[in-house]
């Protein structure tokens, strides 16, 4: 199966290990990976700040970049969701709406792709330790992907899974919110860190690099000894 990777700019620049793990994992599951060089950012930061005009240029670029893909897979629920939002953003545009729709229909978040398309629930991963999982808001609520990451994690050998209290609560990232309303964001992420600590887990796992950057960044500052891992990295552990 041919998979076109949409890595997201955060992974490309700051979390290249997540991208590498995604490639290795999908290849191991029998996929052939393609990475179009012309991909940039999905436009979400500008779009969510109200700069719709500016963000549309980026979106058009992405639609064209992925126009020939069979399956577009992204290790980020939020960025994959953004592709699903494109048809609404271009609603009424005779040229771009159909193209946006076609892209949205072929776009999957990584764990969703593995469970729903590849029909694999156990990827044969192994990781010793206790872990908890942060359910990212965009991935669960807006993209509607709830079960797949949990199914996959529960099948990781050696991993003891504990549920995160208040898991439905946002970590306080919110894109530019984290800098625009930094004070509020700090209180939100602090509560999230307290909840992570309560679980006693060694690993905090998530499927969105942005949320992990936020929670991990706060835990780093507070010198909490909890290791942050993207789910691609966990599923790629042997």
């Amino acid at each position, binding site marked *: 199966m041919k998979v076109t990777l949409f*890595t997201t*700019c955060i*992974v*490309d*620049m*700051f*979390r*290249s290990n997540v*991208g*590498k793990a995604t*490639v290795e994992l999908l290849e191991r599951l029998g996929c052939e990976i393609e*990475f179009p*060089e*012309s*991909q*940039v*950012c999905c436009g979400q*930061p*500008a779009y*969510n*700040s*109200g*700069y*719709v*005009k*500016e*963000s549309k*240029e*980026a979106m*058009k*670029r992405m639609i064209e970049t992925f126009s020939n893909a069979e399956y577009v897979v992204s290790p980020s629920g939020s960025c994959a969701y953004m592709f699903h939002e494109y048809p609404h953003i271009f609603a009424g545009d005779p040229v771009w709406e159909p193209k946006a729709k076609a892209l949205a229909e072929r776009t999957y978040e990584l764990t969703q792709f593995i469970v729903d398309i590849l029909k694999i629930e156990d990827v044969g991963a192994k990781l010793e330790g206790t872990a908890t999982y942060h359910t990212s*808001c*965009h991935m669960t*609520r807006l993209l509607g992907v709830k079960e797949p990451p949990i199914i996959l994690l529960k099948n990781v050998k050696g991993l003891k899974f504990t549920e995160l209290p*208040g898991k439905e*609560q*946002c970590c*306080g990232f*919110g*894109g530019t*919110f*984290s*800098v*625009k*309303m*930094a*004070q*509020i*964001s*700090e*209180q*939100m*992420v602090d*509560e999230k860190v307290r909840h992570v600590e309560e679980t006693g887990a060694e690993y905090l796992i998530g499927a969105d690099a942005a949320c992990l*950057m*936020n929670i991990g*960044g*706060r835990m*780093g*500052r507070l010198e909490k000894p909890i290791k942050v891992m993207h789910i691609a990295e966990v599923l790629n552990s042997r």
Partner: protein
Amino acid sequence: MAMKIGTEQFKERVDNGLNDEFMRGAVASAQDGMSLKRRAVTTDELGNWEEWRNHAEEIRQHVLEHLDFYLEQLSENVAKRGGHVFFAQTKEDANEYIRSVVQMKKAKKIVKSKSMVTEEISLNAMLQEEGCEVVETDLGEYILQLDDHDSPSHIVVPALHKNKEQIREVFAEKLGYTKTSKPEELAYQARVTLREKFLEADLGITGCNFAVAETGSFSLVTNEGNADLVTALAKTQITVMGMERIVPTFEEMEILVSMLTRNAVGQKLTSYITVLTGPREDLDVDGPEEFHLVIVDNGRSDILGGEFQSVLQCIRCAACINVCPVYRQIGGHSYGSIYPGPIGAVLTPLLGGYDEYKELPYASTLCGACTEVCPVKIPLHNLLLKHREMIVEKEGKAPVSEKLLMKAFGLGAASPTLYKIGSKLAPTALNPFTSGDKISKGVGPLKAWTEARDFPAPNKERFRDWFKSREKGDK
């Protein structure tokens, strides 16, 4: 009290909120408790919960699309039963009409049951100008009123930010109360004091949960029973309703009342749901002799027909407030409006303007928790985004530095070449701030981030470089 509360700027209000330990604890435990209760009687109990939401949504949308028809029908039917209907375009119109009724009736003692729209139009201020004693009879509102007109911080539980010790002090000072801070004892004191007020009132004022067009009725939803006493004992009754709070028949009223009570307080129905039609009938002993219905626009019609129309579907249940992670940290007063939380962040700028309230649409992470719970399916987080777009593109009210940054983003993100150069240079550009694999003291937009968090240093080898060299067979 008008819609606007307090005089501080947004930033200052948030500071106050974040520093109020009691309030934050109270809000957090209220949110957790309310969410459990709500889930028990919504998604858990009703397996087809989405169908309920869909039905509530279709009712609200239908009503808004045909609002002029239903308001006309309502007014005909109220008049048929001997009630008087006044359509008030502005809050001034509403106040002037109510003033004329007060003067005609020579009313001096007024009891009120909880109503957001009367707060919105500053009704109490006018009534006090007229020399009337106005008593709020909802326990929470009564506490706030006694405490020198403190502002509500939640639309269902207005005194959520106050603890029982603070309430005891207020009662001691204003009512000569001498007992303890036990909620039962405090509530009993309120019962005794307010019972007198109910019995001596010459005018009762209520809001309206849902008016029923077909019969000219309207419903009031309470747990305390105060709305019943307000409407049963005074000789004159005035009901003030926001113009969108209407349904076609009892059958739609039933659905929305069910959605309201389940989502607002996690109850299948509240203790009192009172459906009133007209003034008392000829031989009735209780109920008002005279009934006035004031239907208020006050900026609502400007919302109709536009991109924000769906906000008028709101039934004021506060489910969005009870799940909002931002409200959880900053509390209701931070919003500077009687309508806090996600619904407030959408509605307040529409009714009060961007000049006063341009920060509110940004007080959200767009996590979508509000949209997920809304029983009438208002796309709240999308409307917040819509506000941001208006502020940036139509109003030009965004900060210059942000505009420049976003322009640069627009260029960089749309152009692979620029993106490639920019992202490649990032590690070098950020090198002075980097120690090991993190940045602890950033500048520019990173400064706010690194006040509380580390930021990852950019990878020396980007993912795309790795992939390319791997394809070439280097790795």
